């Protein structure tokens, strides 16, 4: 399914970034970083009033030759970015949506941990397992 999942802080530094293989890791980092421009663009395109009640899921940010990049922004401006293989046509938009929601829930669990300092990198086994399961679901 997903080949790379990233959680980006409000200030646009990575809180968590995990990709399926290590060999393309750098490429994914670049892809995720560049996609933040599109996220910014999409958010700023919306009016101020709309921002509060907007849909958190931003949809497809942009397609590259090999991958599709999807985005999701929480109300606290934490961004979730998911890179999926573009050859995987079975992946529907609403599936991506639900994956993001699962990710969001898992992220909330991390935030609820009293030992977690908001803004720190995420080191959570539960979150790791969640992300891994999303990347493992091979179609």
């Amino acid at each position, binding site marked *: 399914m997903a080949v790379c999942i990233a959680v980006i802080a409000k200030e646009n*530094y990575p809180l968590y970034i995990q990709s399926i293989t290590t060999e393309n890791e*750098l490429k994914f*980092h*670049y892809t995720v*970083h560049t996609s933040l*421009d599109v996220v910014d*663009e999409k958010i700023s395109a919306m009016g101020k009033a709309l921002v509060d009640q907007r849909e958190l899921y931003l949809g497809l940010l942009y397609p590259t030759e090999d991958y599709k990049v999807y985005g999701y922004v929480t109300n606290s401006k934490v961004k979730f970015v998911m890179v999926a293989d573009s050859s995987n046509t079975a992946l529907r938009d609403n599936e991506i949506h639900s994956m993001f929601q699962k990710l969001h829930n898992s992220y909330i669990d991390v935030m609820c941990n009293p030992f977690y300092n908001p803004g720190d990198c995420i080191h959570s086994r539960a979150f790791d397992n969640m992300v891994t399961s999303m990347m493992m679901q091979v179609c």
Partner: protein
Amino acid sequence: GGGCGGRRPGGRAAAERRGACGGEMAQCVQSVQEFIQDSFVPLVAALCSEEAERLTRKNNLGFSELVKPFCRLTSEVHMRDPNNQLHVIKNLKIAVNNIITHSPQPGGIRKLLNDVVSVSQPTEGLVTNVITAGDYDLNISATTPWFESYRESFLQSMPASDHEFLNHYVACMLVVSSGEPEPVEQFLKLSQEQHRIQHSSEYAYPKWFIPNTLKYYVLLHDVSAGEEQRADSVYEEMKQRYGTQGCYLLKINSRGSNRGADEQIPDPWSQYLQKNSIQTQESYDDGPYTVISNKNADHLISDDLDNDIQVDGLSNNFKAHPLQLDHLSDTSSSFDGTDYIKTTSSLHESKKTSSGTPHGACLTLTDHDRIRQFIQEFTFRGLLPHIEKTIRQLNDQLISRKGLSRSLFSATKKWFSGSKVPEKSINELKNTSGLLYPPEAPELQIRKMADLCFLVQHYELAYSCYHTAKKDFLNDQAMLYAAGALEMAAVSAFLQPGAPRPYPAHYMDTAIQTYRDICKNMVLAERCVLLSAEILKSQSKYSDAAALLIRLTSEDSDLRSALLLEQAAHCFINMKSPMVRKFAFHMILAGHRYSKAGQKKHALRCYSQAMQVYKGKGWSLAEDHINFTIGRQSFTLRQLDNAVSAFRHILINDSKQPAAQQGTFLREYLYVYKNVTQLSPDGPLPQLPLPYINNSATRVFFGHDRRPSEGEKQAATHISLDQEYDCESSHQWKELEEQVVAVVNKGIIPSNFQPTQYCLNSYSDNSKFPLAVVEEPVTVEVAFRNPLKVPLLLTDLSLLWKFQPKDFNAKHNGETKELACGNDMIGAEVIAEFLINSEETKMARLKLFPHQTGELHILGVVYNLGTIQGTMMLDGIDPSIGLQAGKFVYNGMSVRGRQELEIQGPRLNNTKEEKTSIKYGPDRRLDPIITEEMPLLEVFFINFPTGLLCGEIRKAYVEFVNVSKCPLTALKVVSKHPEFFYFWWKYCCSNTTESLSF
């Protein structure tokens, strides 16, 4: 100071001015309209007699070069269009070229473009814009002159194609000298020659606009050498023969070549000619490593005189296109030498000499005016009437063909709307790119007319012609032609005064797609992209421009891809809400392509600019990658300091790289470092970034290692480096010591008393200089930590110190000895090998043996840093340098360097001032004072009980040993519970050892 202060505001003003007029970065200095106009100008061929060429050569110039600076008209021109409407032409430029009968070769063009780009580097004081976007402040070069010169050269070097006529010759100048025996005969010869070139099947190149090319007869007269009367009479004869409008007498060389060197005359040629005489060069920085390839610096891309292919005494070299690579191989044989700009063998000199060999040495300012006048006269009386006439003829043809006497617009439309499928014979010419028309096919007439209108800036007419032509070509499925018409229709729509219609970007998109995918012609596609991107940028459609630029990047040309990606990056940063990250990403892609294209400096610049975005934002993997690349590029460019600091960065940051990657980083770092140190072997030892040293964990121990307990003998001390610091017990000992000192001094503790501290650490009081005794070792324990996932090997590890010998009895000033040199005063222990495994923290104990009294300062550690796995060679960097002198440890390489030990003292918190500010006290644990010999007592317990019953009495032995040569007297024993002990003395065998039981 005054001069500097004076210059500053000027620089800022310049920056503001640039900012005000350009507004955006990476934009051309000229406007878009000017840029497009100058990209398509009427082409005029020049055919010179040998004698005429010789006259111009006196000025170090060919004929076409001579007139080049004067090819832009300063005044407006009027002409009438086919509907007899007056049309104003402003700022017209023409191009005069020598006839070259070979089409430019792709290899030559590639090389030329590569050279153009590599020569154009940002200068030190290049104006940079500061872009603030979100929390990013980026310094970006305000202009990209390398791209502009690339674009100019690219457009000029485009080979003429059959599907368009814009770069076909409209007219031909025939140039003859007045000094020739038979000038009129020579004109006839030249005229025949031109006819032969145009009409015989021998030459497919150059291309001519229409069959009857305008011939313009120019009589060149050398004022200083020729007879004026004769020139005038020849000119009269010419006027008879060719009409006053068809010929011209141009007088030049008013100044003898040998005099008037003192007179300064502006050289308008230098800016034009530099581009033609670009050398093949990899311009490295002027460093000791500079590699100069003399082989390539020797030749000059200018029209060489190849004697074997001279035709009919004409000096024009028809065979050699300036872009041809051929004369690389045979420069030595064909170089005529005397008249040509000589390049010196030195690369650096040749850069300067391009301005050093003056052009136009025989020309006065009057001559300049004469040439200007000549070009103006030629354009007004010769070229434009010819074009006007041709447009009329073409228009009449188009109308007559349909037998209608209406205006062109409706007529052409009707004619073309009813056009049939072309004949079978034409169909046979079909190839992958669709239909091909023969050169004089009726279908092409309208395109010719459109091109002529375009060249004389009649954009309305041009647009409607292109538009009609486009439909016609599309009907015929002549895709190449259709793409050409689409391209120019879009451009002329944009250039129409008053912009009656919006710029049809989709025309361009279709044209680009057709050129690229159907015709497989990347050069034409690239021209489209360059034009369209510039137009879109001028309309602030930056994201469209960027998409266009990115779409044309492909595998076939790294240089083009690099330049286009860089421009795309600039588009992203210019958008209303700047896309900083996209900018950075595309800069990295551009840098990658530059480096593949061999443009190392440009690559480095791109990466450095991208670095600004990634730096310190937590994207460590990307940051490491950029730093690594910057390091490598800097290294190949011999900017070793940059390379070292970039590599250092990768290793200092908490790296999240996998172990293999870290290993590579480390090896490359060591390799580069090795080169730096070889460069300056006498310089100070470099500071190494690895391993980390936990400065505050440094412990210092004074005295000998305690003798280990043997059997029942037990050292009666808890102080050693193996022992953890225990706050409570050390406090107890301190109290006891104070008590005994008070007893000895009759109840008063002396003010200068300090409790004995054998082992100093971060908990002990380090505010005073500790005392060490001569001939007793000082042990320093340094806490190393290896942050990497690969092991580090330190070899020849020892302490670095400074010693000031001082005899505390007889005062004399000893000189300061730096570093480990005075072994007679201080002996230093060296650890031969010290391996720190991955991510391990390990202590190293290093000893110094002071042999003299004085002040010792322990500064740091010195060692060779190396790896233990190092079988792989560095790719990309020539390994031979490392091999010849490298010292390999376990197949890895190592460099010698140092790290300083700097311990911050405790935060001061006593006075109010100290409380309100942040101040740290000194930490002197590494600055012991070496005092004279003192007695040194060692105490051992023998059979010391570990547990006792209440009221039980046991006998135990205590052994006192004075290890020093100094006698020890007045030994006191102090205890918190003196009532528990009873002493009974027994002298032992040796005179220094006493034992006592209690």
